[in-house]
């Protein structure tokens, strides 16, 4: 893995001529978790997909660049709300999918270490349909880690999980992705308050930064400052930031 760079998204986007977001600048700090918080439909997924080099319905004018000047799209790993596990492949095969798709030999020792780290060793040979939602997201996280990319893009990966599993996954992901430049797109103020080392609220009016709590992430769910931040974020969302 190359060292994680800063990432800068600068530009505007429109869909069928209508503005999706006015000119904005989003900076993702090197090796940091940046949480992009916003209601649904404001364009969070669009921003994330633009960074990943994936198709969006929007026309983007501007630039997306890394502080080290290296290309971005080939250094990202991507994880979405849908775990995107291949239903016909086993847990182990899903985790090493990237290598197979590139025609490389997967590093099996590394794969097994990651599977163990995600506490999936008993499920190695199972198909995704035999796993719970939380287990499936752990497989998806292992697959993301297997890619070993300096930039990691997470599009509401935990939002379909129940509260307890979600908190567990947040802890696991925060620990596992340490040192990478992470963009977490979420609509959940609590999640942003727990995980963000930098927090930005996105509304129709643009981006508004918000100070993260002082405690290191992942913060305790009952940490007072974290709860206060969660409240402040929700208020910003409701008031449309501005």
């Amino acid at each position, binding site marked *: 893995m190359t060292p994680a760079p800063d990432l800068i998204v600068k530009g505007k986007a429109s869909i069928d001529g209508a503005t999706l977001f006015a000119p904005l600048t989003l900076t993702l700090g090197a090796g940091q978790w940046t949480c992009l918080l916003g209601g649904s439909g404001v364009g969070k997924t669009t921003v994330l*997909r633009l960074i*990943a*080099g*994936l*198709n969006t319905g929007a026309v983007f004018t501007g630039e997306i660049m890394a502080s080290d000047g290296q290309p971005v*799209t*080939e250094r*990202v*790993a*991507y994880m*979405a709300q*849908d775990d*995107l596990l*291949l*239903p*016909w*492949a086993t847990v182990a095969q899903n985790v090493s*999918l*990237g290598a*197979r*798709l*590139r*025609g490389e030999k997967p590093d099996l020792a590394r794969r097994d270490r990651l599977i163990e780290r995600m506490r999936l060793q008993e499920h190695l040979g199972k*198909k995704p*349909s035999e796993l719970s939602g939380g287990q499936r997201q752990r497989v998806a996280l292992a697959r993301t880690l297997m*890619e070993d990319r300096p930039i990691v893009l997470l599009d509401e990966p935990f939002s379909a999980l129940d509260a307890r599993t979600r908190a567990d996954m947040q802890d696991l992901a925060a620990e596992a992705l340490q040192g990478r430049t992470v963009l977490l797109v979420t609509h959940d103020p609590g999640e942003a308050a727990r995980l963000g080392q930098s927090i930005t609220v996105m509304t129709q009016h643009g981006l508004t930064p918000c100070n993260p709590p002082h405690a290191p992430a992942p913060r305790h769910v009952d940490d007072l400052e974290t709860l206060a931040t969660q409240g402040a974020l929700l208020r910003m969302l409701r008031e449309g930031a501005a």
Partner: protein
Amino acid sequence: MKYLSALAATIFALAIWQAIVSLTGLPKFILPGPALVAETWWQNRWLIAEHTWITAIEVVIGLAFGTILGVITALQLANSRAARVLVQPMLVFTQALPVFALAPLLTLWLGYGLWSKVAMAVLIIYFPITSSFFDGLMRTPSGYLDLARTMQASPRAVLWHIRIPAALPSLASGMRLAAVYAPIGAVIGEWVGSSQGLGYLMLLANGRAKTDLMFAAMLTLGVFSIVLHMIIRRATARMAGEMR
């Protein structure tokens, strides 16, 4: 339970058949009753078996070739836009032609033997196989393709590791349709020109006013088709669903 209801339906159908024969009093060369057909079937069991064997060979070879050709065509279409533009309209157009009108031509080209019937079966199943597999290949869930893209997958690897496996259930449903159509194709071929096979036997019996034998051959064809469909169903079960 499934077998019980199938048995009940069969008995019900036989009862209706017998009732029509008894009520209308039609002569047996117009409409023979089930008892007579059963008797005729038993008396001619070796003859019928021989012709069934011929038809079965035509159908199985036709299914194999039709499936291979359909799969190759679908892959080519899915892989190349040029192929889609050039070939797809032609495929659709051929479906507007009555295939059985081609049967005499096939006999002219390929002769009276096995291959004109195989060709007929292939013609009739080629389209369902091609179009169902092609549809499956073009409807890969976009999330998988996004993921593959961020992994810098080559188009070839995406086809092999994602699009084809994701399309297997569609191919399975195409093959199940083909199992129903293929015997029809073979029998049409036999009808037009042959000296063996169930289609030939039916035509022959009909010509000689042996309506009971004609019914026996036809019912044998029906049972054969159902058994074939069941076999293909089972063979494609893994492709179709278990993996989901």
